[in-house]
């Protein structure tokens, strides 16, 4: 199974009332090999790495950074060190992996969006609290089953698959490719967070990290605009500001 990974950063919401101009970047394409437990683990590792790196650059409060070494790759990324962030990201990744497992051969997208919480006058269609999204990162994945390959009763015992022969070579080569791609993605993230800084809202006292949410639309062909609209509608009903 392969997964295609793209990361797009979109800063500035689409709605007209925002002053900032949106822009989009495509970071990279990755190939993730997914295969039973190995695939899930790879997805988790990669997603964790990417999401934490992004959040680290948006956690502008007082933090104590934490270096994390990936197990599958020779890459070290940085977490902001906040436990709530870590838990939130892990939970979302688990949901995403579960969802991918149920919907194979589908393109999926996981979005990391930063928002500001604004209170507005209650009107007929929104509550007081409103979220203003000022940056969005889209990660696109597509997974599909590889042709052939006897699934094998290849031991359900061994979690870390050591496939004999060509399979192991394929896996290792793909993993190497994935590692390089992941490194490239991280470079791109650093580049993007550096390029645009004006749209980042000011740091509030006591706030460690910019509030964010991670979503993955269930529909594979929803457009970005639809997603935004969905979020705006949902945000109107959210009583909590930081989920």
């Amino acid at each position: 199974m392969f997964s295609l990974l793209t990361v797009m950063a979109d800063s500035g919401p689409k709605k007209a009332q925002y002053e900032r101009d949106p822009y989009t970047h495509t970071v990279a394409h990755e190939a993730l090999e997914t295969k039973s437990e190995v695939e899930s683990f790879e997805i988790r590792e990669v997603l964790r790495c990417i999401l934490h790196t992004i959040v680290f650059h948006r956690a502008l409060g007082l933090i104590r950074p934490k270096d994390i070494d990936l197990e599958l790759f020779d890459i070290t990324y940085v977490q902001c060190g906040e436990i709530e962030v870590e838990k939130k990201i892990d939970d979302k990744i688990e949901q995403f992996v579960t969802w991918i497992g149920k919907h194979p051969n589908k393109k999926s997208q996981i979005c990391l969006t930063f928002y500001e919480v604004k209170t507005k006058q209650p009107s007929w269609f929104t509550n007081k609290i409103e979220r203003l999204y000022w940056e969005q990162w889209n990660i696109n994945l597509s997974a599909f089953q590889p042709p052939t390959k006897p699934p094998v009763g290849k031991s359900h015992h061994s979690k870390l698959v050591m496939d004999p022969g060509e399979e192991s070579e394929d896996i290792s080569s793909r993993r190497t490719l994935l590692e390089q791609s992941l490194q490239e993605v991280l470079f791109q993230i650093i580049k993007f967070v550096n390029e645009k800084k004006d749209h980042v809202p000011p740091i509030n006292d006591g706030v460690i990290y910019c509030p964010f949410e991670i979503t993955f639309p269930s529909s594979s062909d929803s457009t970005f605009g639809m997603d935004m609209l969905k979020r705006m509608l949902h945000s109107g009903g959210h009583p909590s500001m930081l989920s």
Partner: protein
Amino acid sequence: MTVPIWSKSEDQGGKTHTMDFPENLPSPDIGRLEQIVSHFFPKALHIVLDSRIPSLQSRGRTRDRSSGGLNVKKSDKWFNLIMGDRPAALDKLHSWHRNILDSMIIDIILIHPTDDDDDHGNVRSAETVIERWVVQYENPLIMSPQTSDPSTRYQKVYKKAIILLRSLYAQTRLLPAYRVSRQLSSSLASSRYEMVYKVSSFSDVFSPPVTETMKEFRFSPVEVPPGRLCASVTYRSDLSDFNLGAHITLPPRIITDYVGSPATDPMRFFPSPGQSFEATSFHFQGRAGRPPLTTSSASERPHSWTSGFHRPPTPNQSFSPDFHWSRTDGGDSHHQLSPPFSPSGSPSTPRGSYSPRINVRPGTAPVTIPSSATFNRYVSSNFSEPSRNPLPPFSPKSTRRSPSSQDSLPGIALYKSSRSGESPSGLINHYPGHKLTKDSKYDSGRFSGLLSSSGSPRFGFSRSPSRLSSDLEDPDCSCPFDFDDVDESVLQYSQSLDRRKTSSSISQSLPIGRKSQDAAVGVLVQMLKTAPPLRQDSSTYMASSMSGVQREGSSVSGAESEFSMARSTSDALEELRNYKQLKDLLLSKSKSVGGATRVH
């Protein structure tokens, strides 16, 4: 916005600033902007060197996470990035950077050996700049008009400076030099590689050629009126030329759970084939990576007591994955892997998921020693029926199957009984000169001395007498002490036993060469001790020998006195012949292995 300090007292280093800030800015802003710039340099320096030079790594950074920033120094809170205590060396380094208009250039230099040798044959070392970090504050000649609100300008500037330092921090982890510095910091001090740094204020002294291997990454500058903060890094993307992996040796690792050491749990457990065979439980490899499931690799790891087991068993023999150790205390089955025994002597387990087989190659396997009871049974049967092959019954062939625990094993009793309370290492240690301490439990040939202390069987040397009969016919046995050999050995030792009353001398006289020899010899000793005398009645012998086995500390003479049944002359002569052959065999073998003892 959480700006840590805006007081001039925090201005470290007592720098003098010659930058001309625009006069239309309110004076507090001027000071704050100035401080942002002035604190940016040491912070960047700290981030870079902390990730590259182990000696300058901050302490206390990972501590106090739960307390958040409560115990953080004010100086460390700059840019909302807690780095830990800044080493004094860094402060000294930065003290010279008095003019914030000066660039700060940090060179990360790798000292590595070259292929050239000098006249004395010593390997030369070369220095190569693998990274160059440049931080500078550019002050444009013409100041651009400031459109934003001056009052909030420093907040925005500070925010952007924070983001810049975040990305600089993340970048230090991504570049190849980070991995190299980690490797070097964990390697032995004698490594010829070293990573050093150099901080300068101008780059014309050493300008690394921007070759194909050098890449550059420029961080987006942060506008700090009147100028802007810039940071960039030029780095070698490929460090494989230095052959770091080949030269860096791993530091000696203390394996605290060394299998077989007294401090560790003596009982190891081989997971069944149906179980997952993940890395953590396989301590043969010192936890280095995943455990290989092959027997040869499993036997690579030396143990003090398994020198004879290092040879990979033949393919037709089951090995570790099939191994089960049963614990008499009914412990769980998740113990770590036991020493790389050959499957010989695996105690019979209720799990029964595997059929143990002894690795009976000469000199490689411990010989499962039958209990004295079974032994004696055979002995008596041999004596009472001269027509039968007067061979000792305890050939390894017959004692190979999975024995139950807690049976007495005279052979094992000879081995390290002093360590009965410690690690089992019940395997016969065949090291020449290995101390075979005497234990009072020797005489009775009781294995319980080794078994009972921890309540768990060490090795499957114990076996139930009832199994003996089924094991005699196994054709796979090829131990050195085969029927004939054992016969001879018995002959040898019976003669020696006649002159000795204590098992200590017997144990010391054992030719120490191979485990199987020791095991068999031990059996022989016991057999001889309890062997019926030529004139003893068989029935009397059986009863007395059984009691002798059960009785601890029985003397040899006492046993011998019970062997008073009458024997025919031919039997005696046959026996004597066998003993002589055994003696010769043992002598030859002890000579062949350069044994330290002689059999008298």
